[in-house]
């Protein structure tokens, strides 16, 4: 392959209180890969994603993002050897969009470049406008989020994440909070992004998106990766009964 590493996770554990929600995850993702993570709710897929930018602090394990260790802690160590170094290389899109309500669309997009990257304001606005045009919402630039539909808010949220020029994009059920007729616009933006070669990790309930856009699909259940492979393998030649049962419970039939 010769691709460089995007994400390398080894022995990742996460406990909430006494409850073990990630039970030793090993995961390797190359740059340019689009990975879909599916699984029943409570399987730990969102927690895994949120560990990749340290929104959740792992209990133990190692996370590398590209050539840098993001987090490292061995079992029994009092504190992590490494946690939250320099700048994040990931951008994240949330189920609830989480646009800041007190800022306009444009202000949402330029906030982090201005404050975190100290980008010159003119350049930040230029870049933001280009991104808003790309997600089809340039005409909403001066509106506040409350006046946008969920689908529009989510596309702004994608533009906001992209404004920081992340190497890897994390999507946490980006269409789950949307009315069905608004899902398409968001998925289209994500497909375009994948087409441009962006490395993407997408926790999703959209089986069709996982099947058609992802290079690889990971099925998680009860805090572990149960099965992974190409969409075709996962959706047509699944091995584990747990995955077969999960798929039969979803209405997805793309591969018949």
């Amino acid at each position, binding site marked *: 392959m010769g691709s460089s590493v995007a994400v390398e996770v080894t022995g990742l554990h996460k406990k909430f209180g006494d409850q073990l929600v990630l039970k030793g995850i090993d995961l390797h993702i190359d740059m340019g890969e689009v990975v879909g993570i599916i699984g029943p709710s409570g399987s730990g897929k969102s927690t895994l994603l949120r560990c990749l*930018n340290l*929104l959740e602090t792992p209990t133990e394990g190692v996370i590398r993002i590209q050539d840098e260790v993001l987090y490292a802690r061995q079992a029994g160590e009092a504190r992590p050897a490494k946690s939250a170094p320099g*700048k*994040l290389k*990931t*951008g*994240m899109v*949330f189920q*609830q969009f*989480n*646009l*800041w*309500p*007190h*800022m306009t669309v444009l202000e949402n997009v330029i*906030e*982090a470049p201005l*404050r*975190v990257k100290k980008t010159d304001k003119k350049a930040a606005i230029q870049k933001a406008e280009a991104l808003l045009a790309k997600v089809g919402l340039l005409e909403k630039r001066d509106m*506040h*989020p*409350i006046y946008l539909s969920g689908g529009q808010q989510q596309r702004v*949220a994608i533009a*906001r*994440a992209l404004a*920081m020029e992340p190497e890897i994009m*994390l999507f946490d059920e980006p269409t789950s909070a949307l009315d069905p007729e608004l899902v398409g616009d968001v998925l289209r933006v994500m497909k375009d992004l994948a087409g441009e070669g962006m490395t993407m990790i997408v926790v999703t309930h959209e089986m069709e998106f996982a099947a058609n856009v992802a290079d690889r699909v990971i099925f998680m259940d009860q805090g572990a990766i149960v099965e992974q492979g190409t969409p075709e393998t996962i959706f047509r030649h699944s091995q584990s009964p747990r995955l077969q049962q999960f798929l039969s419970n979803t209405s997805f039939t793309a591969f018949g």
Partner: protein
Amino acid sequence: MFEFETVVKYLPNLLHGALLTAGISAGAIVLAFLGGILLSQMRVSGLKVLQLPVRAYVSFIRGVPFIIQLFVIYYGISLIGVDMPTWLIGMLALAMNSAAYQSEYFRAGLESIPPGYIEAARALDMSKLQILLRIKMPLVFAKLVPPLTNEFILVLKNSAIVSIISVVELLRTGQQIITTTYRPTEIYIMVAAIYLVINLGLMLLINLYRRKQSVWTGRSGGDRA
């Protein structure tokens, strides 16, 4: 008979006192606002060494009449030999009192911010200070306008109490005029009217801020789910 001449004659004196009242109150409101933010940050820090003193302080302020807090500070300051004008002591006492109440409002406001807004900022690599100043505080202020309005008005009205440590503000100016004119009704009505006018001005300012805000909170002022 209501003597208008007395009121007119002494109006400049009263307005002079009113200026001090407004100044002391404005200073106390600003100090208390900043102090309240600081105390609330200590309170939500998760560190017991910071939390416990704040809790004790807030209990003291809540549980003791303001006039007694004022005496404790007034005599305390002279006891440790610090020379301070009485208006400044009054302003500090007002600020220390209001900061405790405001810190509780800020704490409640901070806890009511949907965590997703903070997570979005963290995922974009914003620092704790940036998140506080750019995300948390504007959202908290929006929620807190009504209780803070009450609190600011309370500071203004409590400022009358500092007349007791002989700060010649609006009330004490009025009382001094009464001792020479023997027209308490006229003067007290005038004093009351001036307090009311200052308060109305304060509310006008706050309403301007609210109108600016309604652009993003929506007319109902309600929050998104």
